[in-house]
């Protein structure tokens, strides 16, 4: 039996009288990856904050390396070998890799001189061990998010961390970066570290986990070896009821064309010469879901952003909305023409965290909800109440700040904001990202309801089952060009992936 690094027993925590954790336990062995699973709001983050020393008031006990302990602060926890790799990276982009790694623990000589050279050498050794191709003297901001994440892990190791907590570390990574992360995790395990891994992705959970612990509604449900926990059981544990993994699409006969693109092009937002979207044409009809398949850099995201006017007028080609010519100009312009966009980054682009749920929902629809420029709280409240019901948004009061909601509920608020604009075409960029299983199925049901009411959807999602099950048609994009088109039922994961990777064989789309 490998060494037990961590043992949390009977952990409980409540905020303002509301119990968020009750009698939860979790242990971690040296050399294992322990996946912590549960829906949004199940208490995973709270448990990890206790472990990180952020919450110092809690019930229960924490034993570290066999000795009972109690952290007084996050620094205290870090000193004792616990390191959290955050979803949002905590590196300083303008500083060099080695300065970041040794931040606040600089190696200083007499008189406070910094020993840059020694730091850089130590840093190089560390990064080498992780197999990350990085120059210690280069600024962190020069590297991609995936590499930055590896740097953050290196920083944790420099702290001599033995317990690493990774909270959805792959959410912003490309496929090769994910692979590298998993390789790094393997080498960490071999070095005797334990990893607590939080994820919402089924494939990933079964890929990395040695053991899995499930929380639900702040309670401990169970812990099991990966191989002894079938997926159906895991889902059942997480949601408390058996749920079919089947995604249901209730496709009706589509109506008249509502969005027609002819040779639509968008220049690269980063300024590279090759256009990000290159002469894409399609026609979208009422009540239809068009899926856009593509890997990182395929141009799918740039396409919907370009349509929505995020890049202003810098687009080419012809667009018709309901038969009338449309030229992207600004988001406000797009909204007036019945287009709405759900961004894939709700924290940065989707919501105003300091505003209430009501005010977020009404924000994009204010021109309609405040006739004459006069705010009408009654109209806004009524609209928000209706959408809260329709989308099953769980919130104590609609006047709460959006920042206080869980991820899934925030996503629903972002969706509600789009819907309140009464769109004809809804552009959905990763509508289920960071959302728990229950909320996902809510969103699938809603997509069916919206199309039934005549709204047309453009769907971008990195989850293949979702794309295949929901889309009535799929366009595969590669480097800004359409490489294949599939009708419902004709698409297989392999074919779609192959087309997204640039292979056009077996398809006659290019004619």
């Amino acid at each position: 039996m490998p060494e037990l690094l961590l043992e949390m027993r009977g952990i409980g925590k409540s905020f303002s009288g509301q119990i968020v954790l009750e009698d939860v336990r979790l242990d971690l062995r040296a050399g294992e990856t322990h996946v912590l699973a549960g829906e949004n709001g199940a208490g995973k983050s709270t448990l990890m904050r206790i472990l990180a020393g952020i919450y110092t008031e809690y019930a229960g006990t924490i034993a570290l390396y066999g000795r009972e302990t109690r952290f007084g602060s996050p620094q205290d926890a870090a000193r004792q070998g616990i390191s959290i790799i955050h979803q949002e990276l905590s590196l300083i982009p303008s500083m060099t890799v080695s300065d970041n790694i040794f931040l606040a623990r600089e190696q200083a000589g007499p008189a406070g001189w910094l020993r840059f050279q020694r730091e850089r050498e130590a840093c190089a050794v560390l990064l080498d061990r992780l197999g990350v191709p990085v120059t210690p003297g280069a600024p962190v901001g020069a590297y991609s998010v995936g590499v930055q994440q590896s740097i953050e892990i290196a920083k944790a190791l420099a702290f001599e961390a033995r317990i690493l907590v990774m909270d959805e570390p792959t959410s912003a990574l490309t496929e090769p970066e994910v692979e590298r992360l998993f390789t790094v995790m393997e080498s960490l395990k071999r070095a005797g570290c334990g990893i607590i891994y939080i994820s919402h992705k089924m494939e990933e959970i079964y890929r990395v986990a040695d053991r899995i612990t499930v929380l639900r509604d702040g309670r401990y449900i169970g812990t099991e070896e990966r191989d002894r926990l079938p997926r159906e059981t895991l889902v059942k544990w997480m949601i408390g009821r058996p749920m079919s993994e089947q995604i249901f699409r209730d496709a009706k006969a589509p109506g008249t064309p509502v969005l027609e693109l002819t040779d639509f092009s968008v220049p690269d937002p980063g300024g590279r010469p090759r256009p990000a979207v290159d002469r894409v044409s399609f026609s979208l009809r009422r009540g239809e879901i068009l899926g856009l398949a593509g890997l990182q850099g395929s141009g799918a995201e740039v396409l919907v952003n370009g349509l929505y006017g995020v890049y202003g007028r810098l687009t080419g080609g012809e667009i018709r909305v309901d038969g009338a010519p449309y030229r992207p100009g600004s988001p406000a312009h797009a909204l007036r023409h019945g287009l709405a966009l759900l961004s894939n980054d709700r924290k940065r682009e989707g919501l105003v965290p300091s505003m209430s749920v009501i005010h977020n929902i009404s924000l994009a629809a204010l021109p309609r909800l405040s006739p004459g420029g006069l705010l009408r709280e009654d109209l806004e409240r009524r609209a928000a109440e209706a959408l809260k019901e329709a989308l099953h948004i769980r919130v104590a009061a609609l006047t709460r700040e959006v920042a206080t909601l869980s991820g899934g509920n925030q996503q629903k608020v972002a969706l509600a904001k789009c819907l309140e604009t009464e769109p004809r075409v809804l552009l959905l960029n990763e509508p289920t990202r960071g959302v728990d299983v229950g909320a996902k199925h809510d969103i699938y049901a809603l997509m069916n309801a919206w199309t039934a009411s005549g709204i047309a959807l453009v769907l971008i999602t990195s989850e293949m089952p979702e794309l295949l099950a929901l889309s009535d048609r799929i366009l595969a994009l590669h480097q800004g060009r359409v490489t294949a088109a599939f009708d419902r039922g004709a698409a297989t994961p392999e074919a779609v992936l192959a087309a997204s990777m640039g292979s056009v064989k077996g398809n006659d789309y290019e004619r």
Partner: protein
Amino acid sequence: MNDNPRFDRLRRVLAQPFIRATLALVIILCLGALFNAEGSFFRWDAHRDMLRHISRYGILACGMTLVIITGGIDLAVGSVLGLVAVTSALFMIHWGWSPLVAVPLCLLVGLACGVTSGTLISRFRVQPFIATLAMMVFARGVAKYISGGRKISQGVETADGFVYLDFPGFFNFLNARILGDNVAVVTLVFLACAVGAGLLLARFRPGRYMYAVGGNEEAARLSGVAVAFTKTLAYAMSGLFAAIAGICQAAQETQGDPEAGGSYELTAIAIVVIGGTNLMGGRGSMALTLVGALTIGYLEKILSLNAVGEAGRLMLTGFIIVAAVLFQRSKR
């Protein structure tokens, strides 16, 4: 521990920014009652004079609240106040223009300053601190240029010797007290400004957009908010309020001093911050600023009633600003 529901309810009430700000004000008032300077604190004139004194700062703070809610800062308000004090004195004392012409022109001067700052910030992406710092220096320069560096007052030297001009009735009215000598007119001007800014924030679409822009500019833009217009509007309103304060300044000092308003912007920011409006933008309200104005006003009044000199007043005010902000944060 701390799970007692009664304790909890109290904590939730205390967590409301308005309650916190009011509590700070009440503490100051209690101090006033305690150190009442042989009862002077209990007489209405003390309060009336305090309100008169704080009015110009309060008017500036109205605009500052809008700007800070959008996530910006306006350092130019003191200089714009000085510039408008000069122009209004010039128009009405020296040139004898009717206020019907002079006042709109003066407001236009303030508005132009604000629109310029706002345009620099929203269209040319100059940082608010830099853009309004430049406007602060520039407006002071214009004030000195127009006035020739001298105070614009009733006394004028001409070829025939020294002439003493009439003081305009409009300035007399602004400087007067009404309602049985109980309220200064400038205080009513301040209240009107506060109500105006408050209504804009709470009842009109552009006000809501100011919160959205300050809370998350990118999300606001993607929601169809005209971000550049909203920001420019905030600075334009700030310039407008600075112009109103400038006219009041000229009336109260019976002259247009090109040096007037130096460091007033800092007092205005202090008022907004003591009220509890967040300097990061997105959170705050006009009601908070009103409480902040009263807090600063009473603090200074109580200190001067107790014959604390200017040196001591300034030092204590510094302390109180920090104390008020720490106090508000501890209740969160």
